[in-house]
């Protein structure tokens, strides 16, 4: 699955790669949630630098992680979004939930 996880102190970073759609999102979700559950970070960074395509399934992926992090008061950052990904995130109002670089 196209997710690499790194843990540095209280920061978990998930490097996503490939195409995010309804087919691939479930596997990515499992891997991210497993890293968050075992490390209890104060910050989760979702790095979209390696993502070549994303539809609204990626929005569901971000919203679901945001909801989970709210339970522990942790923050969410989004980074590396291409213009195509930024366009769909803007449409969905993701900037209201997470810091987007």
């Amino acid at each position, binding site marked *: 699955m196209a997710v690499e996880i790194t843990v540095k102190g209280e920061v978990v970073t998930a490097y996503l790669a490939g195409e995010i759609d309804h087919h691939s999102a479930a596997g990515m979700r499992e891997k991210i949630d497993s890293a968050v559950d075992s490390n209890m970070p104060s910050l989760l960074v979702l790095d979209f630098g390696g993502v070549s395509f994303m*539809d609204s399934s990626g929005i569901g992926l971000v919203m679901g992680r945001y909801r989970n992090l709210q339970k522990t008061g942790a923050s969410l950052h989004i980074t590396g979004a291409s213009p195509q990904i930024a366009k769909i995130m803007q449409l969905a109002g993701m900037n209201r939930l997470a810091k987007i670089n």
Partner: protein
Amino acid sequence: MQTINKFSMNFLARSSNEGFARACIAAFAAGLDPTLEELNDIKTAVSEAVTNCIVHAYAEKIGKVYIMAEILEGGIIKIKIRDNGCGIENVDMAMQPLFTTVGGERAGLGFAVMQSFMDGIRVTSKVGRGTTVTMLKKISPRITVNG
């Protein structure tokens, strides 16, 4: 409006075919020499429509998804995506942003993305018979320097 090129295909409503459908439409639309942004808009809209067929129309079975695309005079691409699934009881309600019947991690943004990324969309549906989504996008002509 005159049809310049046309293709049609059908495939089983399996999630692994979402990427296949995007790749096919991208290859077909390439004939219009779209910008990267226009091509991504088309791929995203098709991905949403096909995902709707898989997640909603055929929630209980694996049916067939039909795609028909045409390149029309004037740089317009017309894409029709049809299923013979459960149908939508209230199309206007289904098209409201954030409306979803399945919960989980579906954002309820599929139709909002199609509306926003394409230049026109029409949805017709009959409960128990299926749904057809027809979308149009005009590809801007490029100015070529050396012919």
